[in-house]
């Protein structure tokens, strides 16, 4: 197996300390270069399969963060939405106030549900 260090590199590392061989540096390099990489070979999967489920506390914390993000996004959308113009249009079109409120609530619920679904994905 090639340890990746040619003779010139070796000689350089020997001479790196003012003409005196830097033994520690050279030894460290040799030990590292002569070490094979141990293939994972399913090791990681075996470890992951034996891990306990994440704690409910951390799950709840992650969920709270997702809900906070969705509420913040909904607030920004609501702030930018031209409710006054829609209301005026609705009055002009003779749409009842009750049906307008219903549509608004349904739309908000749909947007929040979509946001939560997307965040969980």
């Amino acid at each position, binding site marked *: 197996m090639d340890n990746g260090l040619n003779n010139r590199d*070796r000689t350089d590392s020997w001479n790196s300390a003012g003409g005196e061989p830097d033994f520690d540096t050279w030894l460290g390099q040799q030990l590292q270069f002569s070490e*094979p990489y*141990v293939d994972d070979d399913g*090791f990681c999967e075996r470890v992951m399969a034996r891990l306990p489920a*994440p704690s409910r506390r951390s799950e709840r914390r992650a969920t709270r963060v997702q809900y906070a993000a969705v509420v913040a996004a909904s607030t920004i959308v609501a702030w930018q939405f031209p409710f006054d113009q829609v209301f005026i249009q609705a009055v002009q079109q003779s749409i009842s106030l009750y049906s307008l409120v219903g549509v608004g609530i349904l739309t908000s619920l749909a947007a929040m549900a979509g946001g939560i679904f997307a965040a969980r994905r």
Partner: protein
Amino acid sequence: MDLNDEDLIRRVVEDGDQRAYAHLVRRYQSQLRFSLRQLCDGDQALADDMAQEAFIKAYKALPAFRGDARFSTWLYRIAYNLVMSYRRKKSPEVDQEAVDRAQQEESVEEAQQLGMARDLNSAMEELSEAQRQAVHLCMQRGFSHEEAASIMKLPLGTVKSHVNRARAKLQTLLQAWREEVVSG
């Protein structure tokens, strides 16, 4: 994007993100398993079992990890404790078949290696186990003397002494090779 250990640990602890832990396992599995194979006298199956236990124990204890040491140091300490505890419980019997198998594989690999690596392995075999471990941790893994002392549960002075004695012995054992390389 390659996240550092601290970010991955934060994800595991705060979000329960097991994929982040899988990153850590993949990052350290080769080094840890190789180190433990040396510590288990070549018994690869035992070393892998110990490495697996160490990763699982580390995962469970991760919320208590304060970050005042590197994750790798902490992981090694857990792994070394496991092996030492196993050795104390079990008499120093070694799975001889596994050792023979490993040595056979090693000898095939050694035959393919250049002379330097083979000489280095032979020289390392001449060291005492504690000296070998100290050299492995400090010179091969790059841990400081303090970190190695913490992992091996030995006084700092003892670890320094092991490293110094090992260094002197290795310098003597590799003297012939050194002269050959320096003279070109």
